[in-house]
C-alpha cells in the first residue's frame, strides 16, 4: 500500500499532470498529421524527456503514444490518409463512413474503442507484469539469449513485408550496435579513431534520423496531391458508441485481447495488431461483405486492438528489458539514460516507478476521451497546414533535438546519416523496426551469447540444458524454420498440381 501511495505521489503532481496534458496535445498533433507516426512522436519527444525526472519522462511518452495512435484515425476518416500505420487497416471503412455522412460516428468509435483497448491493455500490464517478473528473476544468460533472439526473430518474420528484407534490416541494426567500446573486451570497434564513435552510436539521434528525417524526406518527395477535408456532419461523436458497444461486445474484447497478446510478443506492435484484428473481425463477422464499404465493426475491433497493443508492448519491456515494439525500444533507451535498468529487478529496486507507470497508463487512456473530442473538433484547421510549411518546421525540431542529447554537432551528423539510411531503406521496402530492435538488443544478445558460451565451454547444447531455455530455444528455431517449411509445402503443392 505504501508503494502505491508513493507511486500516486509521483504521478499526481501538478508538474507531472501538466507534462501529461502537454504530451497528450503533442501526441494528438503528431498523430493527426498524415505520415507522422506514433514512433516519430516518441522520437521527437525524447530530447524533451532528457531534462525530466523518470516518471514525467515516461508519462510523456506513454501519453503521447496513446494519443498519437488514436489521432491517426482523424486524417484516416477525413482524408483517407492514415495518420499512423496502426490506423491503416480500417482506413477504407472510416473514410467511407465520413463520405456517407457518418464521419463523427467513425471518429467517435475510433476514440472510444481506442480508450477501451488501452485500458484493457493497462489492466493486463498491471496484473501480469509482477508475476512474470518473479519468474524472470530465475532467468539466466541462456534464457535471456533465447528471449532476445525470439524478439529479433518475431521482428523479422511477423512483419508484413519480405523476411529477407527484414533480415537485412536486423543485420544493419546489429552491426550498428557493435560500433564503439561497449563489448565484452572493451576494444574499440569500427570507430576509426573517432572519439564520438568510440562511445557508440548515439541512440536518440539515430532514432530521430531513421524515423523523423526519413519521414520528412518521404513527405517532401511524395507524388500524390492532398485531398480536401469534408465538413463535419453535425452528429455527436459519442452518440452512437453505446449502441456500438452493445452490438459488438465480442469484437471489443477480442480486439483488446489480440492487441495485448501481439503487443507482448517482442517485435510485433500496434501496426500488426490492427491488421490482424481487422482480418479476424472480417473472418468471424456475419456481415463480411460490408467490410471496406463503411462498416463500423472492423473499426471497433482493430481500434481497440491497436491501442491495447501499446500497453501490451510494455510487458516484455518492463519485465525482461526486451522491447515489444519500436516505441518501447526507444523507451528502454530513455530508461537507461535515466539510470533505471528495465528487467525483473526494477520491480524490487524501483517498485514505485513501476506502479507510477501503471497509473500513467490508466490516466492517459482516460484523458484520451475529452482530449480526443477536442482533437476531433480542432483537427480540421491542423490538417489544412500544407506539408510544404510543416515539414521544414519538423526538420528544425529534429536538428535541435539531436543536438540537445549531448550538446554536440556529432548528434546532428548521426541524425543526417541515419536519416539517409532510413529513407533508402523505406524506398527499398526494407522495414525499419527490425533495425531499431537490433540496435537496442544487440548488446544484450552479444553479452548473453558470450557469457553462455563461456559458461558452457563452447558447447551449443548448453543453451538447451535448462528447461525454460530449451523451450524458448525450440520455439525460436521453429519460427526460423516456419518460412522454409511453407516454401517446401508450396513447392510440393505446385508439383502435385503440375503432375
Amino acid at each position, binding site marked *: 500500500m505504501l508503494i502505491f501511495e508513493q507511486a500516486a505521489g509521483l504521478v499526481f503532481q501538478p508538474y507531472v499532470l501538466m507534462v501529461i496534458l502537454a504530451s497528450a496535445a503533442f501526441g494528438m498533433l503528431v498523430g493527426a498529421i498524415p505520415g507522422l507516426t506514433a514512433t516519430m512522436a516518441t522520437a521527437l519527444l525524447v530530447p524533451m524527456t532528457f531534462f525530466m525526472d523518470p516518471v514525467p519522462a515516461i508519462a510523456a511518452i506513454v501519453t503521447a503514444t496513446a494519443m498519437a495512435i488514436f489521432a491517426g484515425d482523424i486524417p484516416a476518416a477525413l482524408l483517407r490518409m492514415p495518420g499512423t500505420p496502426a490506423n491503416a487497416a480500417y482506413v477504407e471503412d472510416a473514410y467511407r463512413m465520413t463520405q456517407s455522412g457518418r464521419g463523427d460516428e467513425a471518429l467517435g468509435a475510433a476514440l472510444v474503442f481506442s480508450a477501451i483497448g488501452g485500458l484493457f491493455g493497462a489492466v493486463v500490464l498491471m496484473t501480469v507484469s509482477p508475476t512474470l517478473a518473479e519468474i524472470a528473476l530465475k532467468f539466466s544468460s541462456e534464457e535471456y539469449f533465447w528471449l532476445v533472439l525470439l524478439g529479433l526473430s518475431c521482428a523479422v518474420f511477423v512483419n508484413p513485408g519480405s523476411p529477407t528484407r527484414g*533480415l537485412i534490416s536486423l*543485420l544493419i541494426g546489429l552491426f550498428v550496435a557493435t560500433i564503439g567500446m561497449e563489448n565484452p573486451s572493451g576494444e574499440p570497434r569500427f570507430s576509426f579513431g573517432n572519439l564520438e564513435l568510440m562511445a557508440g552510436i548515439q541512440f536518440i539521434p539515430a532514432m530521430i534520423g531513421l524515423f523523423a528525417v526519413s519521414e520528412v524526406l518521404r513527405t517532401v518527395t511524395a507524388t500524390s496531391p492532398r485531398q480536401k477535408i469534408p465538413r463535419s456532419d453535425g452528429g455527436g461523436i459519442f452518440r452512437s458508441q453505446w449502441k456500438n458497444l452493445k452490438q459488438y461486445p465480442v469484437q471489443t474484447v477480442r480486439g483488446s485481447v489480440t492487441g495485448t497478446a501481439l503487443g507482448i510478443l517482442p517485435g510485433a506492435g500496434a501496426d500488426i495488431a490492427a491488421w490482424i484484428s481487422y482480418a479476424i473481425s472480417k473472418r468471424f463477422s456475419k456481415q463480411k461483405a460490408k467490410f471496406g464499404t463503411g462498416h463500423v465493426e472492423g473499426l471497433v475491433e482493430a481500434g481497440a486492438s491497436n491501442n491495447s497493443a501499446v500497453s501490451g508492448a510494455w510487458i516484455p519491456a518492463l519485465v525482461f528489458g526486451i522491447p515489444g515494439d519500436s516505441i518501447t525500444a526507444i523507451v528502454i533507451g530513455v530508461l537507461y539514460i535515466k539510470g533505471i535498468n528495465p528487467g525483473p529487478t526494477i520491480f524490487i529496486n524501483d517498485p514505485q516507478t513501476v506502479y507510477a507507470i501503471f497509473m500513467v497508463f490508466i490516466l492517459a487512456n482516460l484523458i484520451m476521451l475529452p482530449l480526443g473530442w477536442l482533437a476531433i473538433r480542432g483537427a480540421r484547421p491542423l490538417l489544412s497546414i500544407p506539408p510544404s510549411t510543416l515539414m521544414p518546421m519538423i526538420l*528544425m525540431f529534429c536538428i535541435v533535438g539531436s543536438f540537445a542529447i549531448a550538446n554536440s554537432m556529432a548528434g546532428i551528423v548521426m541524425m543526417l546519416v541515419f536519416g539517409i539510411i532510413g529513407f533508402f531503406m523505406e524506398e527499398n521496402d526494407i522495414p525499419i523496426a527490425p533495425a531499431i530492435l537490433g540496435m537496442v538488443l544487440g548488446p544484450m544478445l552479444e553479452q548473453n551469447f558470450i557469457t553462455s558460451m563461456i559458461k558452457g565451454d563452447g558447447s551449443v547444447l548448453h543453451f538447451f540444458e535448462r528447461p525454460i531455455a530449451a523451450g524458448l530455444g525450440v520455439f525460436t528455431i521453429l519460427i526460423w524454420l516456419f518460412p522454409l517449411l511453407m516454401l517446401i509445402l508450396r513447392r510440393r503443392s505446385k508439383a502435385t498440381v503440375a503432375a
Partner: protein
Amino acid sequence: MIKLSELHLGVLTALGGIALLLASAHFGPLPGQAYGAGTMPRLIGWCSILLGGFMIATSLKHLPDMLKPHLSDWVRTPRLALAALATLAVIVFYILFSETLGFIPVSFVGLVAMMLVLRTRPLTAILASAVTTLVVYYGFSRLLMVPLPRSEFLSFLG
C-alpha cells in the same frame, strides 16, 4: 533514389558481410577464452554472406528483370528531387554554419529557403520560419537549458 532488386540487395548484403569479416579479423579474444570483441561482428558477417547468397540464388530465376535498377518516381521530377536535396542541404548548412553564425540566423535562413523550395508563399515562409525559430530557440535554450549556438550580433535576443 535507386530502387534495388533482390539480386542487387543480395550482392550488397554479401559484400557487406565480407567487409565485416575483414574489418573484424584483427579483434582479439578475451584473455584465456575463444570469444571476444570479434565474435559478434564475425557472426553478423557470416549471416550477411549466407543471406546475400540466398537472395542471389533465389533471384537468379528472374535474372533479366533483376539486373536493372529502377529509379523512384520523385527522382525523375525535378521539383521533388530539389525538395529532397533542400532537406539534406538545410541539415548540412546548420552543421557547417550554426557554430559561427549562431542558431537564430541559420535556422531562419534554412527554414525560409526550404519552405520556398517546397513552394510555400514567401510571406507565409518568412512568418512561419520566424515563429518556429523563436519557439525552438526559447523552448530549448531557455526552458531546457540547451546551449544552442549563439551569434554575437544577435546576442540581444537572449
